């Protein structure tokens, strides 16, 4: 579904990503894991066109997208949930969802999509008219996930969705991610939280200092000695 081929990217003169290659197939859940500062956010920004690669190619369903602006990429069905629960704070929950369907046409489809996401998180329906900034952290994360579903994404990228959430809510979020995947949405999950994310992923890549140093099936990675030592302190 998406092929990232030998991508390098930098902020100004500082090179962050070095020769990154990976791919995600239809209906998969892929996890990219790595410590703080490894370049995970830089990588997803590059995929979304917020940053253009210095070299390399990114192909989405066979089409090159590495030179496209973000709004063109979004139109193709690639949706990112950025890190840090980015909401429109002084808009209602409903308006936030409506914006999620900005690229979709037709009022009836928007309404349908809204009803569908309310089924996943009924609490949002109750708070439909509340300003997004008045929601709790967990509710905001749900709102952001629901908003990303409003446009029927083909590939959903999540940048550290569990950051700063209580364990019980993390579980709920990851559970939802799995359900979304079962509905046919391909998932690219970027996380520091190795065990939880590899738990739901089919395959994983390990990113350190801007390079992919390991890849494999989730189960294999969980048994890998480097991962055990560095990430799980075993």
């Amino acid at each position: 579904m998406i092929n990232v081929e030998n991508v390098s990217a930098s902020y100004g003169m500082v090179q962050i990503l070095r020769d990154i290659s990976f791919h995600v197939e239809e209906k998969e859940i892929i996890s990219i894991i790595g410590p703080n500062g490894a370049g995970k956010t830089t990588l997803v920004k590059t995929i979304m066109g917020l940053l253009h690669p210095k070299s390399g190619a990114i192909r989405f369903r066979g089409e090159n997208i590495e030179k496209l602006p973000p709004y063109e990429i979004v139109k193709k069905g690639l949706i990112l949930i950025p890190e840090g629960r980015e909401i429109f704070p002084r808009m209602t929950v409903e308006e936030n969802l409506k914006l999620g369907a900005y690229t979709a046409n037709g009022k009836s489809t928007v309404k349908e999509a809204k009803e569908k996401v309310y089924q996943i998180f009924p609490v949002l329906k109750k708070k439909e008219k509340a300003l997004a900034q008045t929601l709790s952290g967990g509710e905001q994360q749900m709102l952001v996930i629901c908003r990303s579903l409003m446009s029927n994404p083909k590939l959903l990228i999540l940048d550290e969705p569990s950051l700063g959430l209580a364990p019980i809510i993390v579980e709920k979020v990851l559970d939802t991610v799995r359900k979304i995947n079962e509905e046919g949405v391909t998932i690219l999950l970027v996380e520091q939280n190795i065990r939880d994310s590899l738990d739901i992923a089919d395959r994983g890549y390990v990113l350190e200092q801007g390079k992919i140093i390991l890849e494999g099936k989730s189960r294999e990675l969980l048994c890998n000695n480097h991962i055990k030592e560095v990430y799980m302190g075993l």
Partner: protein
Amino acid sequence: MNQTLINSLGSIKRKIVNFSRSQKFYLILAAMAIVVILPPFLSNYVVSEVLTPMLIFAIYASSWNLLASSGQGSLGHAAFLGIGGFVSALIAIKLGIPPIIALFLGSLLSSAIGFLIGLTCVRLKAWFLAMVTFGFSVIIVTIFSELDDFTGAIMGFPTPLIVDRGLPFYYMSFAFAAISILAMYLVMKSKIGLAFKAIHQNELEAKMVGINTGKYRLIAFVISTFFAGLAGGLFAQSIRYIHVSVFDPYYSFLPLMMCVIGGLGTIEGPIIGSAIIVTIDSYLPRIDDALHGLVGSIFPAVSNVGPPLRTLGLGLFLLVIVIFAPKGVTPLIKKTYNYLRNSLKEEKSK
């Protein structure tokens, strides 16, 4: 396709019907009736020097407000007030075009220049944007002054009129204000307006829901500068004589003050802000005289402090608003209105 058209027409009709039954509608109707029926009973000074400028500056402040709603604060809007004023007057005189058509051409040119300036400004944020818009306004006033042979900007000249001053001009300004503000209201309530709001509140996320942020920021510039130019054209006629002073930075700060005082980001804010500032401005000479007399009688040595006192008064007023009513006076008015209504209801139920 046809079905969706019928559906959306139906929903618009429903919205209009619902609105026409709402209290807001009667309130607006009552306000409209007052501003239409009352003026013939008022003095010429009030109509021409207070009410008419209120309407014109309501358009101007609303145009600034629309740009600000997309997250872009301009400190150079006087450039467009001036372009609209000068260009519409100049082409009416030099080309002999009817002033009403010249007014539209002036607004269009203001908008075209807004588009060009917008092309550079849409990449800038906050203070950089403020500085660059201010810089452009300085460049534009310089161009108008340097081309004095053609523009006559430095000495100034009388402006050709669409209709006579006094009541006819007031009613014309009223029509322009009603149509312009309604148009800007509809834009801000539309999908375009939602994009403005999204860009203002969270630019990254606006991009991530698929909004072409550069395009929408430019659209905000084009619409805003069109109406700023229109306000300029009307303003030039209302002051009888246009002169390079319409480019004064004071006119760039004015819409900012009006919006902050009335309430930023609301549709009624700029209208109320314009009403307050224009009222203060037109009665200040009298307040001046009073203060002058008062202060002079206590401290004969400083009997000459009239004019500074009045600007001081305006400054203090701004301070008080920003500190005690950061959302402008509109919420205060709404609260008072609701309070009065509720207490009336209680009276009745007793």
